[in-house]
């Protein structure tokens, strides 16, 4: 079987539609991950030990199990208790939740990397808690987090093909369906690979720029 350019041009619109949905899912899931991750990071720092422990255990569990199974869980189990989510929403929530456990770690490390002296200085100059966070801690903690968070954004983008397993018509699923229709696998599968590779090579350059701009976070 040989590479057929005519076939490539024929399936290109379908694949591009899939790519659009892939990007949309990535962005939505990234927003969920960023917000939920912050919530997890705050709960993790909670004064109530039961809450802090519980959050840590939950994060550990989510990080130790496959995203695919979590997606199945959300898509197939939740309807049994009356929560029926559309595939796209289930995918966004599943991916967002999975990566929230990773972004929470980034937030935690970012905050802990602000030297203790900064907290003490803020207290010495009689800043309120709010002023301390808004004017001292956040401006120092956030810039080093940006490249790391961007890294997870790229990781999420690469994981979106998993959503095809719960019937979201993203890039991989579109490729699979055209491949099954015409029984030609070489072009669609290779193109999916090329799309992802191209996007990730571009994003590596983008990441270097972010790292140069904001610096790397010390581990």
């Amino acid at each position, binding site marked *: 079987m040989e590479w057929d350019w005519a076939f490539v041009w024929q399936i290109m619109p379908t694949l591009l539609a899939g790519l659009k949905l892939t990007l949309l899912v990535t962005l939505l899931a990234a927003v969920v991950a960023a917000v939920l991750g912050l919530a997890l990071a705050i709960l993790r720092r909670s004064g109530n030990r039961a809450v802090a422990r519980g959050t840590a255990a939950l994060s550990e569990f989510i990080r130790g199990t496959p*995203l695919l199974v979590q997606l199945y*869980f959300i898509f197939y*189990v939740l309807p049994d208790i009356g929560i029926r989510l559309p595939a796209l929403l289930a995918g966004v929530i599943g991916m967002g939740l999975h990566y929230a456990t990773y972004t929470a770690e980034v937030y935690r490390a970012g905050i802990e990397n602000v030297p203790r002296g900064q907290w003490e200085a803020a207290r010495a100059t009689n800043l309120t808690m709010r002023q301390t966070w808004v004017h001292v801690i956040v401006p120092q903690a956030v810039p080093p987090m940006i490249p790391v968070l961007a890294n997870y954004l790229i990781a999420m983008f690469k994981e979106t093909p998993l959503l095809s*397993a719960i019937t979201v018509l993203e890039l*991989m699923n579109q490729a699979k369906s055209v*491949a099954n229709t015409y029984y030609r*696998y070489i072009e669609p*599968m290779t193109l999916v*690979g090329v799309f992802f590779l191209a996007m*990730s090579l571009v994003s590596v350059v983008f990441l270097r720029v972010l790292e140069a701009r904001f610096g790397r976070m010390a581990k």
Partner: protein
Amino acid sequence: MGDWGGYLSLILQGALVTAKLTVMGCALALVVAFIAGLGRVSRFAAIRWLATAYIEFFRGTSIFVQLFWVYFVLPFAGVTLEPIQAGIMALGLNVGAYAAEVVRGAILSVPRDQYEACIAVNLTRFQRMRHVIFPQALPLMLPTFGNNAIELLKGTAVVSLISLHDMTFQAQVVRAQTGSTLIPFATILVLYFLMALALSRAIRMIETRITRGLDGVR
């Protein structure tokens, strides 16, 4: 009410396949990681480029895409692999690429004066790597290798999509036969988590074993 014992044994059979994939995938990943990681710090530019190309390629696309490519496209090129071979190959090469960067980072983080000392005492390049650089770099790699191994374990779920009868696939079978969703998926989530715990324990044991006698040195 179905035959729960039978379904459980189905899932446990799947767990065995998952464990097998994880172990063999890790073995392949380890070999590939050292070859590519050492390739990245080679003195020959051609080898460095080759290693970089491999790493960027496999890190740039996801395990899912690679698996489908290996399984659906390679047969047209005359290479037909069993699902389990395709699974091990894709998992090992994918995680190997990530681990190769770990190897490279650890080797580069050994201080320069160690290299200079080796030159001063006239060690060959091989001796330098074998006796000086590598023993110091290995403890730095291990914790991240542990994370990579867990990523690989999580990646094995994807092979169910090329109809390999791993744990996730068997859970789907049980779901299809019983109509119950909570029990099979909750069971495999717990089993995956236990496997991940076992992996991180094992890595920690290897870590204490390898860093024995290094207290105070680093």
